[in-house]
């Protein structure tokens, strides 16, 4: 292949290194106004009055809008319609939007927000997920504060535990994680022609934004056009919440009939936008003395915050991934998304899986330790293989690369020697190495089946260049490049001659969200389908020119030639010109519907995802036992993504994801006091800097997926998912302790060392 599998330069590299790439805030329109949002200061309160008169009177203010001024529906649709755009009767979390202001300058808009007087009457708040389901808890959602409950029942759990020689039960906790995309949320709403609305902004899911703007303004979907601007990182944090930002800007644009720009400040963004759900996980598993898992029983709670948003789907991915990539005959899982008066949590790379993976992987390592077995060997005994059934009883019939990733990572990291040689007595510094094995269900799966389709449009122009459009988005992950490579390969033209038009709801049909690592498979396949008729036309025309039967012709090196006789050839460019000359239709559409999935909600059994990607992470650390400081030295990450269409970008995904996973395991923690986030900036919410970054060894394993474009499966989320437990396993190895809660901050590590010392003394 000419372009597939090559580490070609990013298609959007030039725009990004020159500063020409226009992100949300870089867009301006004549007559544009600036918006600001008035937010709740209480976690739970009745709204007695919102007095906007002083704000409206401020010179330079063009509009102040509350829930009453919404012409359409006051709802931001995600799954259950419980979330309003602007709070009406009660506020449910600190930072909930109450009113929006449009003014001539951002400063005036800010001042006007301060002049809005809100009278509240405080209500008791639900803040703790462990208490929220109790009888005495105040109720904020139905009669039990539970947005969703999902379960898995496989085999017979009592039987499974009877067969076990060792049973381990443990509680694990994981924190909020903030996306910390470098570009904050932002939208510009532009009213056009009196009755339409255009939206430009930073987002993952233009079709969600289109729906939200239509709902709020009351306009038909056909009159709302959403164009994605360059998007400065997302990681799930620009999945559903941009609908709020766009709705707020659109409401003001609707009333003023002028363009309105709304860019969130970093603090506002951290306080009010979605996060990774904090979790409480009770994990119990049984194993025979030769190390075979017999049963796994899990109960877990996700702290969903004030509105359901994506919680039920996040929870669903959580249960499917909760048992890990292991062959376990008896499984029982119960999971609950719990309502609290805190910021609504949502999508974040891994989508409900990193929490349960931390628990599962830590428990597997603890089981191995109890068996006095190398954790890698414990994995080899239990890992899923081709022909096995998953926890949801899905038969894995191909593309199961977990064993290969384990082998590759162990070899490359020199696991065996390092595992033996750990500890060390070099002053107060101890060395350790730990691992995790993880899998990832690609795409929306049975939980989001009705959205599992994608469209594409391709046009081959007179000059031999091609442009294409898809409904999924580029947010940094490299989709634009990968899809351009696919189009170049399909049409036989140079990669540099392919251009992707910015994602725009008016170009292609609703293609679902850009989430779940689905863009390569879904848009890639849709593009291949769109290119098929173009290839056919090109071959037909070449056949006429050469006087040959088109079925014996092939594309090669910008020529079309007879397969058996390469000398009988015509330049592709000449064929393209000929096609245009003969008025062939050189633009085509493609539509791809995902392979089948299935699910029984009563038993939690079924074909949850159409394919899985697999990975092994190995972390090496140094821990100072006096300070509790951890230095991650190296992360080796071997990934099976079916086919690396662009290995350079694949490496970038692995490294960047691994560092986010390391942050999750070691340092990142949103602190909440009485429902209020108290570290809403980068000096108190600490993400890894270059100083924290370890050495990376990314390894590519390719087990092709038969329905994927060139065998690719999609894997953008996987790099983050299992890194935290690999890091804590390495710390445990270094110190002979076990950590059941992340982040493993120096304080927690020192505490664990103390606890272990005490246990030793008492033991």
């Amino acid at each position: 292949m000419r372009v597939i599998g090559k580490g070609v330069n990013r298609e959007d590299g030039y725009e990004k290194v020159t500063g020409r790439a226009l992100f949300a805030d870089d867009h301006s329109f004549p007559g544009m106004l600036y918006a600001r949002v008035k937010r709740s200061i209480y976690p739970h309160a009745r709204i007695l009055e919102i007095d906007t008169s002083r704000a409206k009177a401020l010179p330079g203010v063009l509009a102040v809008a509350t829930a009453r001024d919404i012409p359409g529906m006051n709802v931001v649709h995600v799954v259950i319609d419980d979330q309003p755009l602007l709070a009406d009767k009660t506020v449910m979390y600190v930072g909930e939007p109450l009113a929006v202001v449009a003014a001539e300058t951002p400063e005036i808009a800010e001042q006007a927000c301060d002049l809005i007087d809100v009278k509240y009457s405080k209500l008791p708040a639900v803040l703790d997920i462990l208490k929220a389901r109790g009888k005495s808890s105040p109720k904020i959602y139905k009669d039990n504060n539970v947005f969703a409950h999902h379960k898995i029942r496989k085999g017979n759990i009592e039987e499974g535990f009877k067969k076990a020689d060792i049973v381990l039960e443990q509680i694990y906790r994981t924190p909020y994680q903030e996306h910390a995309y470098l570009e904050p949320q932002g939208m510009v709403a532009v009213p056009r022609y009196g009755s339409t609305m255009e939206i430009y902004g930073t987002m993952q899911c233009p079709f969600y934004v289109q729906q939200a703007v239509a709902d709020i303004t009351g306009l038909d979907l056909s009159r709302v056009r959403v164009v994605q601007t360059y998007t400065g990182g997302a990681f799930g944090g620009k999945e559903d919440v941009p609908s709020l930002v766009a709705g707020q800007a659109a409401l003001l644009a609707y009333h003023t009939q002028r363009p309105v720009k709304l860019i969130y400040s970093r603090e506002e963004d951290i306080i009010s936008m979605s996060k990774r759900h904090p979790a409480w996980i009770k994990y119990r598993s049984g194993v025979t003395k030769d190390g075979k898992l017999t049963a796994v029983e899990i109960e877990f709670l996700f702290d969903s915050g004030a509105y359901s948003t994506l919680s039920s789907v996040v929870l669903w991915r959580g249960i499917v991934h909760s048992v890990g990539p292991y062959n376990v005959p008896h499984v029982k899982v119960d999971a609950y998304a719990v309502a609290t008066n805190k910021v609504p949590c949502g999508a974040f790379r891994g989508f409900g899986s990193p929490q349960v993976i931390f628990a599962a992987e830590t428990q597997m390592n603890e089981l191995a330790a109890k068996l006095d077995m190398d954790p890698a060997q414990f994995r080899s005994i239990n890992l899923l293989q081709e022909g096995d059934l998953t926890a949801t009883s899905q038969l894995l019939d191909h593309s199961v690369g977990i064993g290969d990733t384990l082998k590759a990572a162990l070899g490359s990291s020199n696991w065996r020697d390092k595992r033996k040689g750990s500890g060390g007595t070099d002053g107060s510094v101890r060395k350790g190495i730990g691992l995790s094995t993880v899998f990832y269900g690609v795409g929306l799966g049975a939980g989001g089946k009705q959205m599992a389709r994608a469209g594409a449009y391709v046009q081959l122009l007179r000059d031999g260049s091609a442009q294409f459009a898809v409904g999924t988005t580029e947010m940094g992950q490299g989709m634009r490049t990968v899809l351009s490579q696919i189009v170049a390969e399909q049409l036989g033209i140079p990669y540099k001659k392919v251009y992707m038009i910015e994602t725009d709801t008016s170009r292609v049909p609703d293609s679902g969200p850009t989430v779940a690592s689905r863009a390569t498979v879904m848009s890639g396949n849709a593009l291949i389908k769109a290119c098929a008729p173009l290839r056919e036309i090109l071959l037909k025309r070449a056949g006429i020119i050469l006087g040959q039967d088109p079925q014996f012709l092939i594309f090669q090196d910008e020529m079309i030639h007879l397969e058996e006789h390469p000398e009988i050839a015509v330049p592709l460019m000449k064929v393209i010109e000929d096609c245009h000359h003969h008025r062939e239709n050189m633009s085509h559409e493609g539509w791809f519907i995902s392979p089948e999935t299935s699910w029984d909600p009563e038993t939690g059994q079924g074909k949850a995802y159409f394919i899985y990607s697999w990975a092994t992470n190995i972390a090496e650390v140094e821990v100072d036992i006096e300070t509790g400081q951890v230095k991650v030295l190296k992360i080796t990450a071997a990934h099976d993504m079916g086919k690396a269409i662009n290995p350079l970008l694949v490496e970038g995904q692995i490294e960047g994801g691994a560092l986010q996973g390391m942050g999750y395991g070691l340092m990142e923690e949103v602190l909440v006091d009485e429902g209020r986030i108290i570290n809403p900036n980068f000096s108190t919410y600490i993400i890894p800097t270059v100083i924290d970054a370890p050495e990376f060894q990314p390894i590519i394993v390719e087990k092709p997926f038969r329905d994927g474009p060139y065998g690719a499966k999609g894997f953008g989320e996987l790099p983050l998912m299992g890194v935290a437990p690999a890091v804590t396993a390495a710390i445990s190895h270094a110190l002979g302790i076990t950590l059941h809660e992340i982040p493993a901050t120096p304080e927690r590590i020192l505490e664990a060392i103390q606890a272990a010392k005490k246990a030793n003394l008492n033991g």
Partner: protein
Amino acid sequence: MITINFTVNGQKKELEVKGTATLLEILRDELYLTGTKEGCGKGECGACTVIMDGKAVNSCLILATQADGSEITTIEDLEHDGALHPLQEAFIEAGAVQCGFCIPGFIMSAKAFLDKNHYPTREEIKMAIAGNLCRCTGYRKIIDAIQLAARKMYGEKP
């Protein structure tokens, strides 16, 4: 309003600014140099890095009035006559760019640094970009890119 005179990307400018305006605001809003980004507005992310009198600074922390009389270079000045600066080329070739929002800031920090240190070690590069956050890349390829650029510009250490 206060009048300031300064040189931006080699051109002399005279501007009327508010006393509270930051250098970042006037670059973006008055001079339309939107390549410089705002990620936090508080000196915590480095997305707004520009070069002021030879030093990399967070333009969100500098008042426009403080820039009076200074010489400013922004990302827009690096490409000349269609030819990319070696740093820009290296960032593309090394695969150091993902979403791109942090990239102008990194390139400006790296430029100020390489202008003074022609043969840096990886550790020195890390110190030079320690104030720039990137959430996408994991940083390794950014360090690679800066090393590659140094080699493109100055060759191997003599």
